């Protein structure tokens, strides 16, 4: 496991985008040879998408031969609802790049048979030859009040600035709003099996409560279920990159990397993945032990190595 600590959320987004750029270009995708990419939604990924769009416009990357799989989607929410992940992906990424519509897979939360839809998704991943790189949305939680109140450093403001440009904001799964996120990946809330595959999940009441402000403060309008890839689905990817930013993710990060594998912090499962990167900002490291952060282990000696990962070798 690699832990990459960067100054702020913007730099995390930039680094992540460069990493995707390198992985895709090194793979040399072409007809019959697609790079398979797993994708998240959310705040930090938003910055990554904007960078990737920029790279695309500069002609540095093409998505013509990239196949994507998104992690999750609400059940029963209209595809073009501003809170849906279809909407997010279309507006923040797909419409700006040259990805072919048939290669962009997002779970259909309106499918008549949701179980079949989940199976179809798993099958599609298999048919595509498995995921090369799964980008894990930061433990999806946007605890705004908590985040701002905790007064994160200057980086916080930049992060918020990105978010505020959006007409919508989303809370994916804010189970412990105001206290801190619970360190889960996609909609694999605490207690999800670490062997889980793509499936229907019923959301915790607290999640609905936290999300209702995006649905006109009407809890009855908040989707009660979601489709999500399982922990094991992500574990099957050749490589996993998890983006974690913000003070409110600090506890989750420490649980994810410093303690044991535990289904109450589902992201900790990736300790057992052969090729996982945690890319985080300094704010997210506040709960980590000093030894982890300041020890020679990471920042000083390894950062040089880490940055080789995103070097443009052309």
């Amino acid at each position, binding site marked *: 496991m690699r832990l990459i600590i960067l100054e702020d959320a913007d730099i995390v987004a930039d680094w992540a985008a460069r990493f995707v750029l390198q992985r895709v270009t090194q793979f040399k995708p072409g007809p019959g040879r697609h790079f398979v990419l797993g994708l998240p939604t959310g705040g930090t990924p938003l910055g990554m998408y904007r960078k990737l769009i920029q790279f695309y416009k500069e002609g540095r990357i093409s998505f013509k031969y990239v196949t994507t799989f998104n992690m999750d989607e609400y059940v029963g929410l209209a*595809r073009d609802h501003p809170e849906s992940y279809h909407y997010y992906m*279309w*507006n923040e990424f797909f419409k700006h790049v040259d990805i072919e*519509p048939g290669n962009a897979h*997002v779970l259909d939360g309106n499918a008549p048979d949701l179980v079949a839809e989940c199976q179809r998704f798993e099958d599609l991943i298999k048919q595509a030859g498995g995921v090369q790189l799964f980008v894990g949305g930061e433990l999806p939680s946007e605890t705004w009040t908590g985040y701002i109140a905790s007064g994160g450093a200057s980086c916080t403001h930049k992060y918020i600035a990105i978010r505020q440009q959006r007409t919508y904001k989303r809370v994916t799964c804010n189970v412990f709003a105001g206290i801190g996120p619970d360190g889960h990946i996609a909609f694999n809330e605490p207690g999800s099996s670490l062997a889980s595959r793509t499936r229907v999940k019923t959301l915790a009441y607290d999640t609905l409560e936290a999300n209702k402000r995006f649905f006109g403060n009407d809890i009855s309008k908040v989707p009660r279920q979601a489709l999500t890839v399982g922990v094991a689905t992500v574990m099957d990817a050749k490589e996993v990159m998890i983006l974690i930013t913000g003070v409110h993710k600090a506890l989750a990060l420490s649980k994810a990397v410093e303690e044991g594998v535990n289904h109450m912090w589902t992201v900790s499962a990736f300790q057992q993945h052969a090729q996982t990167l945690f890319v985080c900002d300094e704010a997210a490291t506040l709960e980590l032990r000093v030894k982890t952060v300041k020890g020679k282990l990471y920042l000083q000696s390894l950062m040089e190595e880490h940055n080789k990962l995103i070097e443009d070798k052309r």
Partner: protein
Amino acid sequence: MKPKSILTRFYNCRILRDGKIIKEDLWIRDGKIANPEQVFYVEQLEADLSVNCKDFLIAPGFIDIQINGGMGVDFSYDSENVEEGINKVAKELITHGVTSFCPTMVTSDEEKYHKILPRIIKRQGGQHGATVLGVHLEGPFINNVIIVTLAPELDGAMEAIRGLTSLGIKVALGHSSASLAEGEKAVENGANLITHLFNAMLPFHHRDPGLVGLLASTTNKQVYYGIISDGIHTHPAALRIASRTNKDGDDAVAAQGLADGRYRIGPQAVSVEHGRAYVAGTDTLCGSTAALDACVHTFRQSIAASLHPARALGIADRKGNLHFGCDADFVILHPSTLKVQSTWIAGECVYRNTVAE
């Protein structure tokens, strides 16, 4: 004619949608505005054609609901060459970004109506010129008619308004000495337009503001108005009064300089205070010295030349805006001068300003 189902994407453009200018692609297919999100996820199709707009602006095509003629043509008098006259004007209008219009007849003798009216046919626009939405009559009578202007104080006016509106014909008020009360009664009965506001009606009086008072009337129906904004028939200050009092009401201001049939003014002369840049296309409000944001401001006002008249005619579900499913009638404007670069009707390019490029 384009073959069916060619999916075209205009990119690198800013478009006017919901009163805002947004950086967004415009997709069209089968003469309609397409929803690219649906095309992507559901149909899983890519664009067949991509058009780089080089940062130009796209606005809905302009709709001119009162045009009495132009290019030496007068719709009310030339009863011999009606079709020829319509064609000539329709062709000229597209060079100014006008995609639909209502040929307008002023009050004439009965014989003229019989001769001319049947020959002004509603028709779809294209290379031959702008769409003919129907006749606007500044006076009585029905075939192919879409708007009738009448004076509400006349006997039987209210019955006429109810009758006409029940036939789907819009009623405009004008050529009138009506009081405000009469005007409001007409609005309650279904009238929703004022023809060349301020002209051919009683001047504003504070004890009875007359039809002008409809601008600030407490009737909760939106009343639209046309205005002759050539700076002669209406002082620019009067124009501003109208616009500020009732900002959602002004429509195709531009072409109303042709009222009363006395004029033989080509559309290029129909310059107005705002809206001028889009319709006249020359000596524009936003010359090269004007700041871009001023132009953007003006650009937004082109709603007055597209959405408002469409609403006045009750056709805003298909014309006057760039919503998905609407007719792909639009105009591409230069980002700083706002000159018309090209005009599109039902997804087909019907005019291209080759000089400007």
